[in-house]
């Protein structure tokens, strides 16, 4: 009889939702009852909206329990683990029966996330049991040439998953062809895009896959040293990476004469970023590794010729590396059979915002955005109207509802004015103001601009000032045109991707939601009722009971009225905090 396995999803967001307590609870119960099952930690299962998650795999099948708290854990322990009676009401996924949440999984294809939520990320043996380190072993045993490895990666059609979309195989070929005694390979794990967490999920859930991808890359291009540049805001990812690196060293996957192959020396270490979004740009990242301010450098020379410390350097993103072992092990075809003509394979998205089923999803390229949001994501929360989806973070743009049938593929997404980006997908409903969204991203890029190029440094600030004015009801005729002019100047006169793409959120919102800008500027109204300065709160005399709750809670004493009489808001004193609106039990406060 196979031992029952109990897996608790312990990635950052699971822990934030209370998964540690659930784990400790189950551990204590197991100890007290001396029940024989294997209690294990695993990474991100992906179903973030149901966190904390506990999966039980027994001889009958697998059962995934969602929204488990300490009380539910006791119940699950007593019924399922002790009496073999699964509690169907709590189960969100099972291989034995259908659940209401099945749509979240249908349509997903897990390649990069193949081990996330399945294995214990702190145990190298579990990775090996799932085919881990077999790809590099096969390469070395079969004496596959560097050129053949690169050709396989090229044939798979994989393009840079950090957002750039440059073919990975080509990048490797350039670095391979550069002659030098020292070459570097870097994994870009500086996931700074606000609203994206794919790389965190991968690093916390399956660090060995990324490490194996790096070793294969090092073999292919002839690198002897590697760096994983990880943002310091991901302490758990850094911890698990370091554990994994030590295990890989002990097993001889890293170090001198790897796996007995004379002359194949390669070692890796984690470098903590210090919090600068621009360091996601490869030349800025290298400057940061060298201990300088993370300012981008002019290209050429490209990193493949002269990168870190002037040596040939190859940089790829976390998700790209995580795909590599799978591609090598299963052949280029196994990856390229998914996707569209020019965008092969799968892509991981962090689905968040006003969506019912948020989480980390991996879908084949070519799926429509609408399917991701409404099939996997279960639609918009609170039955509000879907308005737009933001792709690519501060470098990307907003795709409106009527273009939601756009398919996920580098070229189709680019055609809308947004970019594929690293995989952040933030869903917005009718209550999200698009001018405010543009302001939000400009505020971000303005702060994150390194200051090297004048147009990026000053231009983003000027654009932000205009946007702030508009959202505060002080927009002027001609502001939209001014924004557009500045946007094109910044795009044309910035050295790196940050500046070149910084105006995208503004340009796409002007393109698709020009009417909202005009409503703010001309009518001094915010159609989404989100910009504070443009709102008016009034009392509906038919609904007001004179309970005085609003007047008592008003921080600026702007509400007059005697008990049991209709109240009145003095607009000149109102600070538009919305306190009366949230406190009124009779819906008597009207927002317009």
């Amino acid at each position, binding site marked *: 009889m196979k031992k029952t396995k109990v897996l608790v999803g312990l990635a950052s967001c699971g822990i934030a939702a209370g998964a540690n307590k659930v784990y400790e609870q189950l551990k204590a119960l197991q100890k007290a009852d001396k029940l024989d099952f294997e209690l294990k930690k695993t990474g991100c299962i992906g179903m973030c909206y149901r966190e904390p998650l506990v999966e039980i795999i027994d001889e009958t099948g697998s059962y995934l329990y969602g929204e488990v708290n300490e009380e539910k854990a006791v119940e699950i322990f007593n019924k399922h683990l002790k009496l073999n009676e699964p509690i169907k009401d709590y189960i969100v996924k099972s291989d034995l029966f259908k659940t209401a949440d099945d749509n979240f999984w249908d349509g997903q294809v897990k390649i990069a996330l193949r081990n996330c939520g399945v294995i214990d990320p702190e145990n190298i043996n579990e990775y090996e049991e799932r085919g881990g380190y077999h790809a590099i072993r096969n390469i070395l045993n079969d004496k596959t040439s560097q050129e053949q490895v690169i050709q396989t990666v090229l044939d798979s059609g994989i393009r840079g998953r950090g957002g750039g979309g440059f073919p990975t195989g080509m990048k490797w070929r350039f670095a391979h062809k550069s002659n030098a005694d020292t070459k570097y390979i870097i994994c870009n794990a500086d996931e700074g895009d606000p609203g994206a967490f794919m790389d965190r999920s991968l690093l916390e859930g399956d660090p060995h896959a990324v490490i194996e991808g790096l070793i294969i890359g090092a073999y292919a291009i002839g690198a002897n040293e590697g760096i994983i540049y990880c943002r310091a805001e991901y302490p758990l990812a850094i911890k698990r990476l370091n554990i994994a690196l030590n295990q890989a060293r002990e097993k001889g996957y890293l170090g001198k004469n790897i796996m007995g192959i004379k002359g194949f020396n390669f070692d890796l270490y984690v470098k903590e970023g*210090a919090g600068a979004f621009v360091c996601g740009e490869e030349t800025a990242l290298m400057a940061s590794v060298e201990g300088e301010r993370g300012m981008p450098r002019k290209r050429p020379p490209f990193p493949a010729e002269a990168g870190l410390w002037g040596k040939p350097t190859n940089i790829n993103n976390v998700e790209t590396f995580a795909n590599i072992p799978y591609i090598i092990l299963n052949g280029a075809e196994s990856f390229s059979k998914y996707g569209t003509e020019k965008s092969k394979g799968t892509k991981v998205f962090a689905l968040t915002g006003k969506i019912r089923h948020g989480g980390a999803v991996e879908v084949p390229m070519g799926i429509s955005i609408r399917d991701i949001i409404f099939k996997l994501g279960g639609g918009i929360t609170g039955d509000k109207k879907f308005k737009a989806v933001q792709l690519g973070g501060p470098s990307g743009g907003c795709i409106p509802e009527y273009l939601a049938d756009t398919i996920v593929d580098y070229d189709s997404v680019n055609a809308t004015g947004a970019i594929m980006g690293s995989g952040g997908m933030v869903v*917005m409903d009718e209550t999200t103001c698009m001018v405010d969204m543009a302001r*939000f991203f400009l505020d971000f890029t303005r702060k994150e601009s390194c200051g090297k190029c004048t147009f990026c440094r000053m231009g983003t600030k000027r654009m932000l000032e205009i946007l702030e004015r508009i959202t505060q009801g002080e927009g002027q005729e001609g502001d939209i045109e001014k924004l557009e002019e500045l946007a094109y100047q910044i795009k044309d006169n910035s050295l790196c991707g940050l500046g070149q793409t910084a105006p995208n959120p503004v340009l796409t919102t002007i393109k698709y939601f020009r009417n909202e800008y005009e409503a703010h500027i001309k009518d001094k109204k915010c159609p989404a009722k989100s910009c504070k300065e443009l709102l008016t709160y009034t009392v509906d005399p038919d609904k007001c009971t004179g309970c005085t709750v609003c007047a008592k809670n008003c921080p600026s004493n702007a509400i007059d009225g005697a008990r049991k009489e209709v109240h009145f808001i003095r607009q000149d004193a109102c600070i538009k905090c919305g306190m009366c609106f949230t406190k009124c039990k009779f819906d008597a406060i009207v927002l317009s």
Partner: protein
Amino acid sequence: MRVKRILQKKEIASLQAVDLDLIDPLIEKYKNKKGNLIPILQGTQDIYGYLPEEAFIKISELTGLKLNEMYGVATFYTQFRLHPVGKHIIKVCHGTACHVQNATAISEAIEEALGIKDGETTEDNLFTLESVACLGCCSLAPVMMIGENTFGKLTSSQAVKIIKEIKIKESN
């Protein structure tokens, strides 16, 4: 671009003296290693919670790193602080997902409850309030982090309650 300034002497007169011996092992470890500037600053901040001016001077003297370069790096990266911080650092996430779910209201509620603005420290040195770009827990938005603990799916009143609970614990 962000702009950071080093504290003026009179502003830090009330602060305790910094024990500079604490950074000796750190300097020993990274001395003469290429690309050591950021790890040294990160290590120093781990010890003191911020980067004291005296530490800059000592590191520069012992490693040969130039003061202006160190200052340039320290002011460039958001991680580095030139001001002392409170015992508990409250990081309110202002990533896209949190922004859409009204993280501003969370920040405002905390500002009001503690009587400080973003980036400031309370007078009792208990709390520092910081807004951060993204904590990567987007599906639990809005999110805040206090020390090592992350709190998700917050409302303004919950956020204030969590802080008040810490305050009560501290006063006992």
